């Protein structure tokens, strides 16, 4: 069955001041799949990721042209509900960044901000999100202790739970395992693969093996351009472009 596209990006160009970080990118992000963005540092992959929930708005010099359509609606049109967008498009960062509060409050924070008052309802959301993030069993007896006492891998899963508590449609992940040890990495990867049943996931990774292991689609960026985008199996076995081949085989530079 062919999947629908959750995002449709048309002729996207992103400028930081006078120079462009991304040029003329066209790409469709399929729903309920894992899309990996790869490429050397400075290639524009994180910039691209951040256009999907308008995180780049926080950078004063940043300006974009082109369209970023979420469910066929341009996220950059005037009056677009940015808070609503970030609720629908959650994000997990490279370094686990739990709030300095209890495990429970970390996950409850989002729903509370959204105006959920009913304690039972919040509790249900928190437990569900922790379960989905494969963390609940490890922390169920210490939900009221500080999140900062968790291990790095647990903290990252807590951040994923915090994002899931907002019931997003899309989850953006910016190198979510690069600060974790190999076992914690595999746990997160395993989790991401499970999450794609319900969420559309876009992940930036510097680990080509990680992209090959978990993603359904891979996009290779180089110097602000989307060089190649396709099914992961195809891109890693028979890439169409020489630049892609050179990068994934480690013969770059």
């Amino acid at each position, binding site marked *: 069955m062919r999947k629908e596209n959750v995002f449709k990006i048309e002729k996207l160009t992103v400028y930081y001041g006078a120079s462009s970080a991304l040029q003329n990118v066209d790409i469709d992000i399929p729903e309920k799949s894992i899309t990996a963005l790869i490429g050397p540092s400075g290639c524009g992959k994180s910039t691209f990721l951040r256009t999907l929930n308008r995180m780049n708005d926080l950078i004063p010099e940043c300006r974009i042209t082109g369209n970023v359509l979420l469910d066929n609606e341009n996220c950059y049109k005037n009056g677009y509900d940015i808070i609503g967008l970030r609720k629908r498009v959650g994000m997990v960062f490279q370094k686990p960044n739990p709030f300095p509060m209890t495990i429970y409050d970390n996950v409850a924070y989002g729903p509370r901000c959204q105006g959920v008052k009913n304690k039972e309802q919040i509790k249900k959301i928190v437990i569900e999100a922790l379960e989905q993030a494969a963390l609940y069993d490890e922390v169920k007896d210490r939900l009221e202790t500080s999140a900062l006492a968790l291990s790095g891998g647990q903290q990252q899963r807590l951040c994923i739970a915090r994002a899931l508590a907002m019931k997003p449609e899309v989850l953006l992940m910016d190198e979510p395992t690069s600060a974790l040890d190999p076992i914690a990495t595999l746990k997160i990867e395993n989790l991401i693969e499970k999450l794609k049943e319900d969420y559309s996931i876009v992940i930036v990774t510097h680990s080509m093996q990680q992209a090959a292991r978990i993603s359904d689609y891979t996009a290779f960026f180089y110097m602000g351009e989307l060089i190649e985008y396709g099914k992961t199996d195809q891109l*890693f*076995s028979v890439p169409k472009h020489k630049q892609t081949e050179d990068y*994934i085989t*480690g*013969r770059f*530079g």
Partner: protein
Amino acid sequence: MNIRERFDASMQENDRLVLKMMSRVKTLYEAIFDVLKENDIKAAEAIIDGDIEINALEELINEHAYIVILKQCPVASDLRKLVTAIKVANELERIADYAANIAVYIKKTVQNNESYRKLMYIYRDPLVKMLETLLEAYHETDVKKAFDVCDIDNKIDVIYEEQIKKFISITREKTQIVAEEASRALLVIKQLERAGDHLTNIAEHIIFLKTGKHVTLN
């Protein structure tokens, strides 16, 4: 700038081993046809030794490719190259077995079998040409040359079909001894025909190496 020197050296070693094995098989086939031409029983012994050496090369290629895959996590054309090496080595090992089987036939056959040996010798040029072309095709990752190999195999198949008919008529007409001789010779020809098929398989693997697509040529 080369940033994967050790890896590139491993890939070159892989190529070196595959080409060495292919070239040894070619030498083995040239030798087996010399044996067929002269009915040289002593030289047939050397063929059997040559096959043992080729078996060892297959193991070496497999082990080497396995370790490179293990340590370097190759992708794209690198991965295809290592997978191809394992497959090609397997085909070459089989092809060398056929040569050894033929050597055994020569040793066992005491009667004057010259007319049969002449029929067998017809396979020499096409088989050696296939091996030569494959050496170049692998070395240059040349799809066109891989297809040329398949064309030669088609010619072998035609020769084989004709010879089979001839052998069947011989076994009908002559005495029991002749029929036995013809049957043995038939087995040899079957080996030569199969060698052609496996050489064509190698051509298919080279096409995979270049294009990533699996094709069936025979």
